């Protein structure tokens, strides 16, 4: 007779717990040691905590982190909610263009966005210099604390836009019609009816933006760090990677601090909304008449949105393209005189060249394993009777609060702590495992709502007619979840293509991915290759995005 009880759910309970908890516990353990954890001389002490926390610089960094995150929240909520109302509730022209313009920044990997913004709007950026020569000054400076907050906020506008517009499209317009019938004007309707109804969404997305701003590395690193604006994540990067100090206990203490902040916020976040609704999908909407006629404001408001798109998407991408193909990138020199392909020269080094296929391989294999993992993880948590399945549900959502950099660090130390795993570390598998662990919540929350909608009677009928638990998963649930599986795969694939922070601690020369190569050149201050790499990454991501959207007809944002 076959295996009496299936072990798969237990396997995934153990595996997920291990992938999530082990790196964290390793970090916590390291933070309480006097020396790197592989040294036998390391003893337990809390000295490092006192040392790090009492540093005036640390308090400053904590302040910066909070301020930047708050600015990012205000910016993204303000623009995101405003444009969502414009699209969902007014007669603004070219709605589809506006919608795409609001969502597009998601296609741009964050590290590419950071590079592009620097190239165009940084202190020595193209537009900044152009304005300085034209009108004598630049009205902005993004290499400051508010500037970093602003850019992070702008980058995450699409999230708020998606949340708010989906909530608006689902909410009943009759509520507003009634207010209008009572004699309320446009402004009053928006202030008294529309916005209060959006309150939960605003609160939720505000909290989410705050968390991901705290976890943000690339933007503060590229925009802020060189000009003295440090946040927790850049500080961690600085002392663990760039300084070469290898003060592991200090790194661990900072990582623990970051985890404390993000864990509390994510805990509130999970309380706020049912976990399954985390990544809302944008469904089809019923056609109905526009509520508010903008009248004379139609065109000016559209122009504002257009300028927004110009500033956040079109100009930065243009900047990357121009920088890639020029020797010198300045408004003072006609780019046509300095055209070059030499910025691609670094590709003659196979180590750098390999970062292109590496990125694609990690994303493709990672997404495949990740999607299957997500399926079994979710069915173990939702379709089995095992003890600990509630725990599995919670633990599957927890990595939400783990910044990639921190998780990568945990994995590195885990590999060092368990010698047999060293072999994995030399291959792309190390990255794949860490990526999958970091994005367990993505997979879980994409597949679970679909799984819950399938009646458990379908499993029950199959079990009673003689199928084992795992056979039921394979032959009944998996085929029925095909669309959700494709969606999960696509989401993970696009996410993995853009991911870099998890790899920072883990990569070796032969396992570079595009993002970390960009960071390496950044540390060397070579902008030509950075732009070229950014362009390559942008091209790959964009192509994948378009193809998958066309073929699978699934939405890949969120």
């Amino acid at each position, binding site marked *: 007779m076959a295996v009496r009880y299936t072990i798969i759910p237990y396997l995934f309970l153990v595996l997920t717990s291990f992938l999530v908890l082990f790196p964290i516990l390793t970090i916590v353990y390291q933070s309480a040691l006097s020396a790197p954890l592989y040294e036998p001389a390391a003893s337990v002490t809390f000295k490092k905590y006192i040392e790090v926390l009492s540093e005036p610089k640390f308090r400053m960094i904590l302040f910066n982190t909070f301020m930047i995150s708050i600015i990012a929240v205000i910016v993204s909520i303000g623009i995101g909610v405003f444009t969502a109302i414009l699209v969902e509730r007014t007669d603004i022209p070219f709605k589809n263009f506006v919608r795409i313009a609001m969502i597009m920044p998601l296609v741009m990997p964050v590290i590419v966005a950071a590079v592009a913004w620097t190239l165009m709007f940084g202190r020595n950026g193209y537009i900044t210099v152009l304005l300085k020569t034209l009108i004598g000054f630049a009205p902005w400076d993004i290499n400051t604390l508010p500037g970093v907050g602003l850019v992070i906020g702008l980058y995450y506008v699409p999230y708020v836009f998606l949340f708010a517009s989906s909530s608006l499209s689902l909410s009943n317009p009759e509520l507003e019609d009634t207010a209008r019938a009572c004699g309320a004007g446009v402004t009053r309707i928006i202030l008294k009816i529309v916005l209060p109804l959006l309150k939960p969404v605003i609160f939720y997305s505000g909290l989410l933006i705050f968390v991901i701003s705290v976890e943000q590395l690339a933007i503060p690193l590229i925009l802020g760090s060189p000009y003295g604006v440090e946040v927790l994540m850049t500080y961690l990067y600085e002392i663990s990677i760039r300084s070469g100090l290898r003060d592991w206990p200090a790194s661990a203490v900072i990582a623990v601090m970051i985890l404390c902040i993000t864990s509390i916020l994510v805990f509130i976040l999970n309380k706020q909304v049912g976990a399954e609704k985390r990544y809302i999908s944008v469904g089809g909407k019923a056609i109905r008449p526009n509520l508010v006629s903008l009248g004379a404001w139609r065109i000016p408001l559209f122009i504002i949105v257009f300028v927004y798109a110009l500033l956040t998407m079109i100009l930065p991408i243009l900047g990357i393209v121009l920088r890639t193909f020029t020797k010198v990138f300045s408004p003072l020199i006609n780019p046509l005189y300095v055209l070059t392909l030499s910025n691609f020269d670094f590709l003659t080094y196979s180590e750098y060249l390999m970062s292109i296929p590496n990125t694609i391989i990690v994303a493709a294999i990672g997404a495949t394993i990740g999607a299957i993992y997500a399926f079994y993880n979710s069915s173990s948590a939702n379709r089995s009777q095992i003890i600990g399945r509630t725990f599995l549900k919670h633990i599957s959502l927890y990595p939400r609060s783990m910044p990639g950099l921190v998780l990568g660090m945990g994995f590195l130390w885990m590999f060092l702590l368990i010698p047999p795993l060293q072999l994995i570390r030399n291959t792309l598998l190390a990255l794949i495992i860490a990526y999958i662990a970091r994005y367990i919540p993505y997979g879980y929350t994409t597949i679970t709502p679909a799984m819950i909608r399938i009646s458990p*009677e379908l499993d029950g009928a199959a079990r009673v007619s003689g*199928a084992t638990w795992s056979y039921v998963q394979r032959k009944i649930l998996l085929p029925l979840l095909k669309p959700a599986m494709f969606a999960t795969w696509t989401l993970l694939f696009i996410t993995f293509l853009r991911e870099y922070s998890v790899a920072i601690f883990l990569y070796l020369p032969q396992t570079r991915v595009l993002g970390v190569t960009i960071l390496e050149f950044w540390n060397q201050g070579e902008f030509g290759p950075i732009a070229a790499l950014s362009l390559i990454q942008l091209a790959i991501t964009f192509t994948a995005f378009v193809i998958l959207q066309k073929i699978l007809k699934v939405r890949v944002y969120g």
Partner: protein
Amino acid sequence: MASERGLLVSGLSKRFGKVVAIDGVNFKVEQGKVLTLLGPSGCGKTTTLLCIAGIEKPDSGKILLGDKVFVDISKNIYIPPERREIGIVFQSYALWPHMTVFDNIAFPLKLRKYEKSEIRRRVKNVLELMNLEGLEDRYPYQLSGGQQQRVALARAVVYEPQLLLLDEPLSNLDAKIRDTARFWLRELQQKINITVIYVTHDQMEAMVLSDLIAVMNDGRIFQIGTPKEIYESPANRFVAEFIGGSNLLPAVISEVLEDNYYVCMLDEDNLLCGRSTANLSKRDRCLVAFRPMNVTISSYSETRRQTMNTLEGVVNKRVYLGDAYDYRIILNTKDLRTVRVTSSLDVGPENTRVLLHIMREHVSILPYE
């Protein structure tokens, strides 16, 4: 003895968190018989069924089919559903939407590693049995509700299990089809001579289909018996009210007669004679139960008033139902109780004085709860 191949459920309990779903359920069904678990929603009937199927694991108790132990918590035995060799049909039919009718029915056969030709033969036979010929290649969504229900049945019996579990299989059908489906289902069951546990909240269904009915509420079985026993001699208040909506009047036993007959006193002037399955004695408090349709209503007359088992009252409400009148009668008792009466006779409008006569065979006397 036939029951050796029957189903035995004993001391079955299951709780979900703090909620007690079933609490000490016991019953026995002989091979080839139909037992219906009848009760309102949330009474624990489906949980009991799922425990028999093995989809739920009880907290205590044991279940045996013949000499095969399905579950025995005290001995730490639990056989997973796939090894119990039983069939199940859910309320939703649970047809796998990505498989054709043929694949749905062949699924359990493929699991049992039958030859391809044997699978085809068996599927063909069962489709014939279910009047589903020619639908092999359809997908579930292309079938009517009645066809889906029969495909689900076909899938449940195609591997000839000894026990068939049916969870409200008719409740999603149109009222008209449901009437014929009841009789068809009963015929089918007798044709293939299979033991059936049937779950429903519909007492008509239970009456037509069952050899035994177990009336459940709050996770317990309140009465178990043949449809006739359940209907004619409800053992307690819940069964009396749930089955057929009896009138219930509080009373006191005033005389114990032979053959389980008793005389009850509603008040000094009103006595009723009836039957009880419980052992009662004089001056015990009790409940008198009788059904609206078992009352003979007539206009008031002094002589008839004197006959046994006759109560006096006034029409409070009269509703015309087409084939009968539905009356609310206020009894001429001290506490002015209201009873329901259905009769094809029109005794007059509101405020008419009437007499109600109930034969003593139709009066059930229940212990007071």
